[in-house]
């Protein structure tokens, strides 16, 4: 029994060959404790989304291993890979892109449940339950994404992720496309869901103040490397790496006080 749900060990990801070779991830190691949130901060091109893809087993890394719940999952294939994938869900930045505009909310939410082989009765129960959890009215199920506001659409995307009752959710910039007042609602919801279900989050963002608020631990990525890792307090108040300091100094004063 381990209390670390995810172990990323020495993961390197290279793209291209010869002169065009580039190293997107350079010997990255991370662990995420069960029921906690790891915030992954970095600017464009830092490798944070490449790392998310490696964790989701969407691309096999050049070197290194991904451990989940104590087992090495890097080379899973076929049925074992499908069973593993049910335990992990994802929420993307823009719900306008991640929800099919021609699907009702119920159909969007039931897709991962169908994939998991759940029966109709169980699917209905999960849809109702997850809509309730994210604070959307029951009659949302039969409606379409365009009938909702941006914040509500992101709630639908979160409901879809949570309906599969995952152990681990990767959130890739889930509030970057939202107004600050709506961002507040979504952050509050994510904190509440974690308290209720004990789900573990990997929260990817470029926003240090958001990550400080929501994450138990923060990892800062720069040029494919994790340059700093610690509690939110440590990273915000006593940054050790020069890049973290530069990132903090670039933040508007309002978000530092």
């Amino acid at each position, binding site marked *: 029994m381990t209390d670390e749900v995810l172990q990323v060990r020495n993961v390197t990801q290279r793209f291209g060959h010869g002169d065009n070779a580039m190293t997107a991830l350079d010997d990255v190691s991370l662990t995420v404790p069960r029921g906690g949130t790891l915030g992954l901060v970095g600017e464009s091109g830092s490798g944070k989304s490449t790392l998310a893809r490696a964790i989701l087993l969407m691309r096999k890394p050049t070197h290194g291993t991904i451990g989940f719940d104590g087992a090495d999952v890097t080379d899973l294939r076929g049925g074992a890979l499908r069973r593993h994938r049910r335990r992990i869900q994802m929420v993307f930045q823009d719900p306008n892109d991640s929800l099919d505009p021609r699907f009702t909310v119920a159909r969007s939410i039931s897709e991962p449940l169908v994939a998991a082989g759940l029966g109709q009765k169980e699917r209905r129960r999960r849809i109702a339950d997850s809509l309730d959890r994210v604070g959307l009215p029951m009659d949302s199920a039969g409606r379409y994404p365009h009938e909702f506001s941006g914040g509500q659409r992101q709630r639908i995307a979160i409901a879809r992720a949570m309906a599969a009752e995952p152990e681990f959710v990767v959130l890739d910039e889930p509030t970057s496309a939202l*107004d600050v*007042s709506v961002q507040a609602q979504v*952050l509050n919801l994510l904190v509440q869901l974690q308290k209720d279900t004990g789900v573990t989050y990997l929260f990817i963002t*470029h926003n240090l103040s958001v990550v*400080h608020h929501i994450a138990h631990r923060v990892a800062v990525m720069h040029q494919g490397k994790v340059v700093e890792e610690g509690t939110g307090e440590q990273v915000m108040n006593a940054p050790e790496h020069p890049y973290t300091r530069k*990132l903090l100094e*670039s933040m508007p004063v*309002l978000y530092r*006080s």
Partner: protein
Amino acid sequence: MIDATDALRVEDLSIAYGTAPPSVSEVSLRVRKGEIVGVIGESGSGKSSIALAMMGLLPDSARVAASTMEIAGSDMKGATELDWGQVRGLKASMVFQEPMSALNPCMRIGPQIAEVLQIHGKADKKQARARALEILRLVQMPDAEKRLDYYPHQLSGGQRQRVVIAIAVAAGPDLLVADEPTTALDVTVQAQILDLIRSLRDETGMGVLFISHDLGVIGQLCERVAVMYRGRVVETGTARRVLEDPQHPYTRALLESIPRPSVPVRSPLAVIPAVNDFAEVPAVLEEAS
């Protein structure tokens, strides 16, 4: 009434599209030369409509009404497209959010800057390249001489935004309207662009109307701010006063919704209820002195 030191003065501005209720109502703004004024608001608050109205760039379907609308001393009330042609680029210019869509992808950046100078008679063909280089240096482009011959795709996002700003300030306008110019940029690049806008203001004495959804950015850059909510200005004042001691309940809620180190981690952030109509609360307006 007409003050020669004003880069922008607009009173009772209303903007309506089609038969819908007005998206901007009774908005008054003043930007003095050498001053940076921020307009802050969330999606749909009307802030971008104001920016476009100040440049005469709204579609024909928009109905614009104001009791006063002056840009650097020119009365633009009921101005025709021909009148705007005399103002745009020369007296007022605009920087948009996405530099890649603001630039011509098929044209080297030197000629894109030179074009503005030639159109406004600031340089003839021979001088244009030398002047374009000066302006590219003014916006602190590294290796400016080499980059004159670059295409936009060869530049980074921050460098592209520097080019867009160079084009905007080329003819020496009195007013720069910047609509979310750093929203698409990384935070370290954002800090550089904010520094650049401030130093250009210091050097040229132009007024800046800075539109943003980001309270932190507004607080960093602007001297005065106007807070927009559902098409109306609900609070104005110095940036410092508004951010440190907000008076209007909407401004307060907006500030409290931001995660900050002073807020306990994972504690609930303030939420702005959709049904709560802050528009009922009288606006808190501080006269610009």
